[in-house]
């Protein structure tokens, strides 16, 4: 087997292992309609930059999420486009295909998360929705573990105040810098 083919197989394997989770990552942040396009862009970027693919599976996953975060940031700046290769997936991610959980379940909590400072909110999403550890979330955000822990605790204090105002003590939240 050629070296090129080995490399391509490694990239294919890495993307395949994370594609479901990456779809969720985008669905949680931009909704089910736009998520397939951002995933398509992430996959295309991953192939383009595949020379940088880390050898370890864990690092490869983090590398893919790093690309996904950049794609998302670019989309938030208005760089969103429709990707033809996402057409088939988009047809499967329509709201009609969702069964079970009502769409408004947890909406109050999500609103509270959305109202957090941006960096805190993203940490909460990475930890609670995407299933990252605080250390991994810190790595993805490019911040030290200790900073991530402090931000995460601040986020939870704020959330507790918002969601359970009667049960929490007034807390002075320190200003958060990016």
């Amino acid at each position, binding site marked *: 087997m050629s070296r090129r083919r080995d490399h*391509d197989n490694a*990239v*294919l394997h890495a*993307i*395949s292992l994370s*594609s*479901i989770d990456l*779809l*969720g990552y985008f*669905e*949680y942040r931009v*909704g*089910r309609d736009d998520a*397939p396009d951002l*995933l*398509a862009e992430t*996959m*295309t970027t*991953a*192939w*383009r930059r595949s020379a940088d693919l880390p050898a370890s599976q864990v690092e490869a996953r983090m590398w893919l999420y790093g690309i996904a975060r950049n794609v998302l940031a670019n989309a938030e700046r208005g760089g969103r*486009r*429709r990707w*033809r*290769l*996402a*057409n*088939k*997936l988009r*047809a*499967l*991610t329509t709201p009609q*295909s*969702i*069964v*079970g*959980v*009502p*769409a408004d*379940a*947890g*909406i109050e*909590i*999500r609103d509270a*998360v959305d109202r957090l400072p941006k960096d805190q909110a993203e940490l*909460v999403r990475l930890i*609670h*929705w995407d299933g990252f550890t605080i250390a991994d979330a810190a790595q993805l955000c490019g911040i030290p573990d200790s900073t991530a822990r402090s931000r995460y605790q601040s986020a*939870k204090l704020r*959330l*507790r105040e918002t*969601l*359970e105002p009667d*049960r929490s003590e007034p807390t002075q939240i320190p200003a958060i810098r990016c």
Partner: protein
Amino acid sequence: MSENRDQSRSLDQLLTRAAPPRTPITPQVEDALARMTVQAHKQEREPAERRRRSWKVAGLSIATAVMLGGAGVAAAATADDWAWWLQEPDGAYYFTSLSGDPCEYRVGQIESTDPDVAQAVRDAFREDVTVNQDAIVADWEARLAEYAQFTADQEALGVEAPARSDESMWIMSVSRVVDTQMRADLVAQGVDAAAIQEAGLAVRGEIRCNGEIVE
């Protein structure tokens, strides 16, 4: 202390359960993801390969036969109901029909006796391009004038001219504008159109407006 821990656990659970609903992962979704992964590779690799190709030839006009419509293809289609040979088209163009409907024109199955010619034409078609509306209008108006003259000539001879709707002529104008642009791109790349004409060329395409095939 214990109460704080319980509160924290309760909040953790609330946060985790508050994840927005996401698409259930079915075998179909897994299949679509797998296809996307492979197609993303193909899509990423194509531009580099296109750049590597060189063309020694220069100049003439090209005769392409754009055959519109797909016999027997069901109407009321979705994006995935394109014919198999248009699932990954060589060209895809968007335009608005005369009546204001969103339409897509896909081309594929490019055939020639010379594989290099077929590849040159494939490379000249574009994806995700909106057809220039002004160019469509200009071509369409010219066609209407031509057709009016043709009708008048036929009537002078006592022959009834075949009926053509404005909409069908609009569609023909779209394909002509796309074809003209593709030819211009080939010439810009220095592709010898004489060689293409000699080798022969067939391009197939379909147009769908509002998801329904235009016959």
